[in-house]
């Protein structure tokens, strides 16, 4: 399919039909217009079915039983690990640690890797567009280990300033951690180039893929990063599960994070020994059904016409920008050349919370606030923004509803 071509209505209608919640109405009686996919995605029927099917016919604990049901569950769980690994381009499932979310994965790398290799005075390089999950764990570590945190600034468009990035990198940089896609600006960062640049000074790279995985194709082998994290609940799958991809030599040298059952080799009264990765980092009973449902979400995505999905999202993004630009009092933050359909904006007169309430009364679910990116808002010098974030299950009528809500708001506040 070529750019500017449109995607057939029936395609879009089918995608929407796959998501049961899109058939519901809000308290105001209006049909739900869900524009908050960056906070959490909706779930297709295929994922609900995977959950129900597992619990109704395959449920058992994994890695521990000899009986058939436990074997089935273990196979389903481990083959889900393979599916998830494949989806992000990890060549070997052993490089894929299943965590409880992107947040846990970042905390794990900070505690089990960086804490053991950094020296006082070493630098951690972040960017001003990071989510709190990719800031606070590093601040805690920096305080404990006397590290210095630096932040890569933005250019006018809301893209990272790569010249500044180059200058901030030095042989003192032990870790560079940045988001693949901004949850506020929608910017897609040049992660491969940034990784190369970091590696050139000997730094390791962690990429926060929480917003990228649901929106764009991810290939960790191609990016060649050291660590990559993501959350299932943003990828059309259940809450309670996430991933950490790690380079095998790094995972191998990392000390355990949480400890307990499943990650041990032997436990004696005096001491214990641990399994190799990824098991070493998966203490306790994992989120079994949720992981299996995550693989089902990936299979569902793969069953779609991916070119059509891509094109549809591009069209949505353009339409969204175009329509919003029709409001002179509205300022969009983030015009990077490469971005996903996530748009945050402020209004000269109307506060984001008031806007969100008025939109809600029209059935339109948008987020207002700092979107877990207070430093970015400080940097942009706005206390809060309103964010509309779209997925492939949205369509032009959703954008119409947003625009209508904005008109009502401006009328009310006129």
């Amino acid at each position, binding site marked *: 399919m070529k750019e500017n071509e449109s995607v057939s209505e029936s395609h879009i209608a089918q995608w929407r039909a796959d998501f049961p919640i899109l058939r519901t109405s809000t308290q105001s009686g209006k049909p739900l217009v869900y524009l908050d996919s960056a906070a959490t995605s909706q779930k297709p029927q295929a994922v609900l079915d995977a959950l129900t099917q597992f619990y109704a016919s395959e449920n058992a604990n994994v890695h521990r039983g000899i009986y058939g049901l436990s074997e089935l569950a273990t196979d389903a769980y481990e083959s889900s690990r393979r599916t998830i690994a494949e989806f992000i381009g990890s060549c070997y499932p052993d490089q894929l640690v299943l965590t409880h979310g992107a947040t846990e994965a970042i905390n794990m790398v900070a505690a089990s890797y960086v804490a053991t290799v950094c020296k006082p005075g070493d630098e951690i390089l972040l960017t001003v567009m990071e989510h709190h999950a990719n800031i606070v764990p590093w601040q805690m570590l920096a305080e404990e280990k006397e590290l210095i945190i630096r932040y890569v600034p933005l250019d006018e468009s809301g893209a990272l300033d790569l010249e500044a990035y180059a200058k901030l990198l030095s042989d003192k940089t032990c870790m560079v951690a940045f988001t693949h896609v901004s949850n506020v600006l929608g910017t897609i960062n040049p992660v491969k180039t940034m990784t190369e640049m970091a590696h050139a000074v000997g730094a390791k790279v962690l990429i926060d893929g929480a917003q990228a995985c649901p929106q764009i194709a991810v290939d960790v082998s191609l990016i060649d990063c050291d660590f990559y994290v993501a959350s299932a609940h943003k990828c059309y799958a259940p809450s309670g599960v996430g991933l950490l991809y790690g380079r095998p030599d790094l995972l191998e040298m990392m000390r355990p994070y949480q400890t307990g059952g499943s990650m041990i080799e032997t436990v004696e009264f005096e001491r214990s020994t641990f399994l190799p990765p990824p098991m070493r980092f998966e203490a306790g009973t994992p989120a079994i059904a949720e992981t299996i449902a995550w693989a089902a979400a990936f299979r569902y995505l793969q069953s779609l016409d991916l070119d059509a999905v891509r094109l549809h999202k591009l069209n949505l993004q353009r339409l969204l920008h175009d329509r919003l630009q029709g409001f002179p009092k509205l300022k969009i933050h983030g015009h990077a050349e490469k971005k996903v359909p996530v748009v945050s904006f402020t209004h000269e*007169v109307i506060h*984001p*919370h008031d806007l969100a309430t008025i939109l809600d*009364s029209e059935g339109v679910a948008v987020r207002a*606030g700092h979107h877990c990116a207070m430093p970015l808002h400080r940097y942009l010098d706005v*206390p809060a923004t309103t964010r509309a974030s779209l997925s492939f299950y949205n369509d032009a009528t959703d954008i119409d509803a947003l625009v209508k809500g904005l008109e009502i708001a401006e009328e009310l506040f006129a």
Partner: protein
Amino acid sequence: MTNLQALYQQVILDHGRNPRHFSQPEHAQIDQVCFNPLCGDKIHVYCDYAVDRKTFQALSFTGDGCAISVASASLMMVALQKKDSAYFYEAFDYLKRLLAGEAVDLSTIDAFSAPEDIANMRRIQVIAGVKNFPMRVKCATCAWHTMAAVVEGGSEPIKTE
């Protein structure tokens, strides 16, 4: 009048846009801040007491917030000028009853007998429109909680969620 219209009545929009007593004094005996970590809003209340240590001598506020929180703060400011803590509690109690959906008869409240008091409290009535928007009630009460902290002499920042 829809719920939305009841929420954004002219009084709210007016006070939201042109808050009264909106200024930061050079020196204030008390500077109390209310912060909502989930949305990033912040309201400072500044207060000096008269020599009797009871009457609010200078009362003003600054801050970033939505129309509801700024208007509510502004209406509170107007109502509390030169009043004391007992009066504040009466007013806060009145607001809470309104927010709980009660139809309060102003003439039954002794504290509000002066025509000016009654006019102030009538205006405060419009804040009750927020009761149909539970997620916004914290916006409407933010300044009031801060004022309570002022009166109680606390110095810790107040948080609402």
